[in-house]
């Protein structure tokens, strides 16, 4: 499969998988943000919560790495700046999920 086509497909697959997970996240969001420390720890000790939140981080950053690349393709004129922007998004897409998932796993296990 052509590289661009497989990227396009991966982005859509990530989107479809994210839909139910994100809906679950949104319906819990109002409670989640107002949990105190011990309640938040308890929330992450539930393995299903931990798994869903970790999947959201992985899939969301996979989805947005490709999506942001599409935006850069449309609006960044200079090839060097475009490459730099793509590199920065790649960096962010690795660092944030790795940091967040590690933090949640350590708290939850």
């Amino acid at each position, binding site marked *: 499969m052509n590289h661009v086509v497989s990227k396009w497909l991966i982005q*859509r697959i990530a*989107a*479809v998988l*994210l*839909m139910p997970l*994100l*809906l679950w*996240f*949104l*319906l819990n*969001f*109002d409670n989640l*943000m*107002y949990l*105190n*420390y011990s309640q*938040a*720890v308890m929330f*992450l000790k539930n393995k299903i919560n931990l798994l869903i*939140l970790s999947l*959201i*981080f992985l899939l*969301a*950053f996979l989805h*947005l790495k490709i*999506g*942001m690349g599409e*935006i850069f*393709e*449309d*609006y*960044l*004129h*200079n*090839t*060097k700046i*475009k490459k730099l922007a793509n590199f920065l998004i790649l960096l*962010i897409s690795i660092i*944030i*999920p790795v*940091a*967040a998932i*590690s*933090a*949640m796993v*350590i*708290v939850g296990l």
Partner: protein
Amino acid sequence: MKQESPLSPHLQVYKWQLSSLLSITHRLTSIFNLAGISFFGIWAIMLFMGEGAFYYFEIFASTFLGKFIFVGITWSFSYHLLNGIRHLFWDFGYGYELRIANLSGILVLLSSFILTMLVWAF
């Protein structure tokens, strides 16, 4: 080597209409969503840092600004999720008729506010 690539027409070229407005909003919400999920990453990291660090998050959450940001994130994710369904239909070749595209657009916009209210009003 050629350093400059062709661009998509810039936003001010288009006449304002529902379809373009919703499309721009889809991309804007993608950027808000990046900020939103990163913000949630901060929640996870402060939790990891312990009770003392997490206390600052609790204080922030109790402010009006905190609530405003949470509701904003909810709407941004809701819109992007719902409009994403619309995009998937287009990917499969459905829903391009002008009347349908406008109708689904209005439906998405209304639903995004309803979902946000569902999350926060109950």
